[in-house]
């Protein structure tokens, strides 16, 4: 389980694995778009017809949606609702929580069905959870070396330059 207090760190190797996995899920579920979003609203990965989509906004609203629904769940004594489904006239959104912290978002239309999406998402979620666990372990292992990372060298001038 990912801790909610630690920074999320993504490395190239895991990113490639995640991309391969969601691209496969996109094909197997006949979906239009697939996103992976951190529960804090950060977009982790996206694939499919994303050209005309505001992915940053989508990520933020998805996290807000999951957070609000989680609040509802707690009010009725549930830990969380792990799956949400929004049905539209043409497009639908299927949201599911993976590994406790990451949200898998599948947008699909009539070329697919809720049943197919649920089936494929369930299988992909298990694999995704394993990659995410590896990622956390790797980040923890490298944490001790964090001082050697580029951020340790940030100066006040670097920060001031961002605003000029």
């Amino acid at each position, binding site marked *: 389980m990912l801790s*909610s*207090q*630690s*920074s*999320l*760190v*993504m*490395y*190239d190797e*895991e*990113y*490639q694995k995640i991309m391969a996995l969601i691209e496969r899920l996109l094909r197997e579920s006949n979906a239009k778009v697939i996103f992976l979003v*951190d*529960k*804090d*609203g*950060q977009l*982790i990965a996206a694939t499919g017809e994303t050209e005309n989509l*505001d992915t*940053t*906004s989508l990520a*933020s*609203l998805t996290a*807000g949606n999951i*957070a*609000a629904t*989680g*609040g509802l769940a707690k009010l009725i004594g549930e830990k969380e609702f792990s799956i949400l489904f929004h049905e539209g006239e043409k497009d639908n959104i299927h949201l599911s929580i993976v590994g406790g912290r990451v949200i898998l978002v599948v947008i699909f239309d009539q070329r697919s069905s809720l049943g197919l999406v649920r089936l494929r998402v369930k299988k992909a979620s298990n694999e995704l959870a394993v990659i995410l666990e590896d990622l956390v372990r790797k980040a923890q292992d490298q*944490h001790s070396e*964090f*001082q050697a990372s*580029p*951020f*340790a*060298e*940030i100066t*006040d001038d*670097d*920060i001031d*330059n*961002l*605003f000029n």
Partner: protein
Amino acid sequence: MSFINYASREINCKIVYYGPGLCGKTTNLQYIYNKTAEGSKGKMISLATETERTLFFDFLPLALGEIRGFKTRFHLYTVPGQVFYDASRKLILKGVDGVVYVADSQEERFDANIESLENLRDNLEEQGFDIEKIPFVIQYNKRDLPNACDLEELSKVLNPRKVPEFEACAPTGEGVFETLKAVAKLVLNDLKKGG
């Protein structure tokens, strides 16, 4: 908390504007949105009521440029200020990296400021954050109004820890970017420490 992406070489941080109802949190974001170049900002989202009171949150993604080869992106959020939206406020504080507390300088909002700051302290604690340790700045907004409280008096009550504090008039932009810059600086400094 922050999201460090080595694959796309990006740092993403979350900043939350907190404060009592109608203190000017949304106005801060609107000013930043209006004054930021097209390429550096995303769409501003406001989940508001028909009377433009914030219902859930406002959201503004900003790209500030590169630092040591990493693109820095800040996600700015506001909370709904009205007392009864407390459940929503708690949700928005999840994973926060830095907080801007916007105080309403008007005399009649003095108690509302104190109540909202106490509420911030409690809600941060509930999320596992310590208001004494998290990157935190205070903005005294509406300094232009004739019924604005004495600055020293406000600071004494709201800022005993002496975090960076700024006078502001959000609609004209006075103090708005100074506040944002100060909190961004604290957040990046925190990241440097490996936080």
